[in-house]
């Protein structure tokens, strides 16, 4: 059952990821990204991260991506034209990417030779209580700093989006 769920949603994630890159229209890309996020949320649940799965849906899919879709609709962004990439990218990009993926997979396989399987429910430390407790004790300072970051982002966004600029 766990394996089945993994394969279904990993498949969806990869498919949506490819779709994101392949589609020329930004709205299609955005929806693909939401698909990736949704399937990742399921995988998080499987790994015991129920709070983070909900946060993934609320924050990522529900807020950030709505913002993206909003901007795409607002700018009425059309499909993009032909690719006119630089020579460097054209010749080396694919090669580099392939090398990148291959290396990462190799390293993961060789450095972490764990064959331990994922069992749903084995790790239940990801509830809202656990996350909250850690967040407001050990990680309190980073948490507060992030709130300042958010504040700065709000101010920055407002300043940037003013009419006068």
């Amino acid at each position: 059952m766990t394996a089945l769920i993994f394969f279904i949603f990993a498949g969806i994630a990869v498919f949506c990821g490819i779709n994101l890159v392949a589609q020329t229209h930004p709205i299609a890309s955005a929806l693909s990204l939401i698909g990736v996020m949704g399937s990742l949320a399921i995988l998080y649940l499987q790994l015991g991260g129920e709070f983070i799965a909900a946060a993934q849906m609320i924050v990522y899919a529900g807020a950030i991506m709505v913002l993206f879709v909003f901007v795409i609709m607002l700018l009425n962004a059309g499909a993009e034209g032909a690719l006119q990439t630089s020579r460097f990218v054209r010749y080396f990009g694919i090669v580099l990417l392939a090398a990148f993926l291959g290396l990462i997979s190799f390293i993961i396989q060789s450095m972490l030779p764990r064959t331990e399987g994922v069992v749903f429910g084995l790790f239940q430390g990801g509830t809202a209580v656990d996350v909250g407790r850690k967040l407001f004790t050990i990680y309190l300072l980073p948490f507060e700093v992030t709130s300042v970051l958010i504040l700065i982002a709000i101010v920055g966004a407002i300043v940037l989006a003013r009419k006068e600029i």
Partner: protein
Amino acid sequence: MNFLILSLIKAAVVAFVLLTALAYLQWIERKVIAHIQLRVGPYRVGPHGLLQPLADVVKLITKEGVIPSHVNRVFYLMAPWVAVTLALISIAVIPFGPEIQIGPIKTWMQLTDLNIGILFVLAVSSVGVYGVALGGWASNNKYALLGGLRSSAQMISYELPLGLAVAAPLLLANTLSFRKMVEYQSGYWLGFIPRWNVIPEIFGFAVFLIAGFAETNRVPFDLPEAENELVAGFHTEYSSMKFAAFFMAEYANMVTVTAVATLLFLGGWTPPFPEPYSDAIPILVFLIGGLIAFYHGLQPARKMDKFTLPATGLVFLGIAAIFGVSLVPALAVLKAILMALFWFCGKIGILLFLFIWVRGTLPRFRYDQLMRFAWIFLFPLSVINLLVTSLVVALTSK
């Protein structure tokens, strides 16, 4: 496998009841609005137009599904089903009553319970905007696009006060599960004041309801479909079942919002009066309803009333009788189910009536007023409410 079968049965029951209720909710809305405006509303199909929803469904199904030529086909077709799926899915975590035991089977009157049930509802509702936004965009129509844009901006803006208003009762009850939330609210202060969150969290409740109106695109926040500005907003280009799907999504969202409001603030299925008194209430309600129907049947205003009203009265009396029978100790299970359903549905019904009532009386906001109201008034109010609540919780705990 027992669990699977049980779940399937429960899902089937809930889905059937919910979909029927949605259809009839529309009938109720039309009737109530009509009476507010001194009209009679649907009257032709069936007694008092009771069969009108059925007729509507048949009409919508058999109608030709026009797909305009200039739309983005994939998204155009996808949007209404995204909307309705996401609207219906949150009902899965809403509990309707306590744990009951029928013979050997022990189960909750709920499809599934998540530790993070409330977060789940929030997550689903926050994704729910895609249906509207996508539909508006894919229609390739400036009115529809404006409707979609308005909808997404409005949803993002009102989600903040909504989330903050929800957080306050969560702090009080210290849980994210609906069941525990209701458990926390059961019992009475001083023996007769129900321990509902609405009493300490009256501001939170108000903010939640207002934001709920906006999240469901209801009057006075129905700018995405403002007919005198945007024709019909995001669903201008939709017809037949696709239109019906959008419609269903709106009503399902209303039910979800009212159900969540009931669970978070109004104590879910817990009665407002202590045990022996609360048992009598449903019997009395249905009894009086039946008697009134009989009385009006004796002095019929229209020709058909001679038959329909006494029939309705009989049904009411029958329900009252069932409630009465359920008081027999041997039928405790029945009583538990009936009582929970009565109070839960009663509260939801009152809130839904409020939605309809508001639609019948209030005019629509202007768009800038809508945004200002969210950011300048609701948001600070909910923040202050949350701060005060957390302060009180922090001071009183331990």
